[in-house]
């Protein structure tokens, strides 16, 4: 099968998965035991007002029509309005998604770079005390309870030492005063550092261990022995011969890590009151703001699907041995 056909078949697969997932979401929200409008309606409301709200959310239509409307609205980017405040769900999600992507991509890239560099180095020193120490450290942080580490950092660096703000993404007083762009960026970075460090500390371990295992397998290959026999420098063998080939499995891990990083984002955003999509889905669910929950969940799923797809393509492109 050629590369083009492989990509095409993956695209078709992903579209099918997308429709199945969206249908699952649709069904989930239609089996809600309680009436979703009950959270909108206060007892003082008139019957007409209640009816108008049912009408607005299409709850009077038969289920098939609702299903059709659901997809139609989805492709028009229309997820309805939030039960609270009445803002368009799409606008809320757009804004929150950007905030999340800003935090998560910075964090993933940083932990990726640190993890790979350290992993490479410790695989080379197989069996040494340094290796054992870093493996232990990586494992400990990898299995650490995310919100707890976040709270610890907040307690030490923000509450005790007053180095960083206690949460949020911006200081509104600073932004209202109409500051220069540099001041705005500084304020943003000031808020970003603590959640970012938490993220990187928690996630570099996973990449590091993966890189180490992958390196250890690569180091047993014949071409490493050949490189040694040729008398190449140790550093060149490590960086140019072994590490490049060891990177392959890490690419696939990247896609999985996107899905994991969403779990991390939900928890870290909640601890640091970061106005991202993860915190949005938690708050919306707690308030039973169903249009917002449904929209946020759909968008998160789509992001994960696209990430998986890109990793597949990257992998196929990087490794000529792969049979599609």
């Amino acid at each position: 099968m050629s590369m083009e056909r492989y990509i095409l078949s993956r695209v078709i697969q992903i579209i099918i998965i997308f429709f199945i997932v969206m249908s699952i979401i649709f069904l989930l929200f239609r089996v809600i035991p309680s009436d979703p409008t009950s959270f909108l309606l206060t007892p003082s409301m008139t019957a007409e007002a209640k009816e108008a709200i049912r009408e607005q959310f299409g709850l009077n239509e038969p289920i098939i029509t609702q299903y059709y409307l659901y997809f139609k609205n989805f492709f028009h980017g229309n997820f309805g309005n939030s039960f609270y405040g009445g803002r368009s769900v799409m606008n809320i999600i757009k804004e929150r998604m950007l905030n999340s992507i800003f935090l998560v991509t910075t964090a993933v890239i940083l932990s990726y770079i640190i993890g790979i560099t350290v992993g490479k180095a410790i695989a080379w020193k197989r069996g040494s005390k340094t290796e054992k120490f870093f493996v232990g450290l990586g494992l400990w942080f990898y299995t650490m309870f995310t919100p707890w580490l976040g709270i610890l950092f907040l307690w030490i660096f923000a509450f005790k030492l007053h180095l960083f703000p206690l949460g949020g993404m911006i200081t509104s007083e600073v932004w209202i005063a109409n500051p220069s762009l540099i001041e705005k960026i500084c304020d943003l970075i000031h808020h970003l550092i603590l959640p970012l460090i938490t993220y990187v500390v928690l996630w570099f371990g996973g990449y590091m261990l993966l890189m180490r295992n992958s390196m250890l397998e690569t180091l047993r290959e014949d071409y490493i022995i050949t490189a040694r026999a040729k008398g190449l420098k140790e550093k060149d063998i490590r960086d140019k011969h072994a590490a490049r080939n060891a990177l392959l499995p890490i690419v696939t891990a990247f896609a999985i890590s996107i899905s994991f990083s969403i779990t991390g984002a939900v928890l870290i955003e909640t601890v640091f009151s970061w106005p991202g999509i993860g915190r949005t889905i938690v708050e919306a669910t707690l308030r039973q703001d169903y249009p917002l929950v449904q929209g946020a969940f759909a968008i998160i799923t789509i992001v994960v699907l696209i990430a998986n797809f890109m990793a597949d393509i990257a992998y196929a492109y990087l490794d000529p041995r792969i049979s599609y």
Partner: protein
Amino acid sequence: MKKKKWKLIRQIWDLIRGSTFIKLGVSIIIIFGIMAVFSPIWVNRNPEIYDPIIGVDPDVHGSEGPSLKHPLGTDYIGKDLFSQLLRGSQIAFILGIMVSVLSTTIGTIVGLVAGYYGRIVDIILMRLADIILTLPRLPLLIVISGIFGTQSNWIILLILSFTFWPTISRVIRSQTLSLRERPFIESAKVSGVGNRRIILRHLAPNVLPITFYYLTVTVTGAILVEAGLSFLGFGDPSNMSWGMMLKWCFTTGYVFKAPYWMIPPGLCISALAFSFYLIGVGLEEIVNPRLKKR
């Protein structure tokens, strides 16, 4: 027969002794095991004060620091934090191990069946696994818990297992695919052994090391995800897990004032998750010859 059993126990013992990772992991688990067993003893001395859910100390107002009566202090309404911590270790063990056993069993069976039968069975099962894998786990759990309204640990157990089996089944499947082509399977088929017997007697024992690895690693995942759910407020309100302890500490505003309340539950979650993962890594180093020292 008895001799054989002893030999097996000796073998497991040697395995544990040989690996630093497994030794450390097992030691931590034993500490938490003692905590879980000690829980009813501590509570039953005086359930009215020490019960982790309904017990309240009438002499305490607000959260107070550690004392002789309450070794870890009390929470915002005067409940004993030490008994909550002990109860939490029971829940973490029960939930973690049950999720792990359930999802590893399903994952292994699905992987074996998909890999052995191939064709349409394989396609259907693996696409199903793909779909579940692409669903973001924590948001999915949040949404499901939100929809069911009243959460119970049983629902959490079921949906956790539901999201954990696909990873395992994919690995087992790829292993089965390569095993299927080996001569001993061929000869079993030729001599007329039934499909079910081939899977149970010839394939299953060969994938067992992987199953054991996932058995331990899944406990870690389950403990962390359950704690995360409880921390976010989607836990079983009729019980007190570690995640929920941290949640109450966080939401009642004691998080920076009461380190005696904030530190223990998070430390316990991390340590227990760590210990099961260590055993998994130790097993991996033994089973995967490619990771052994040159």
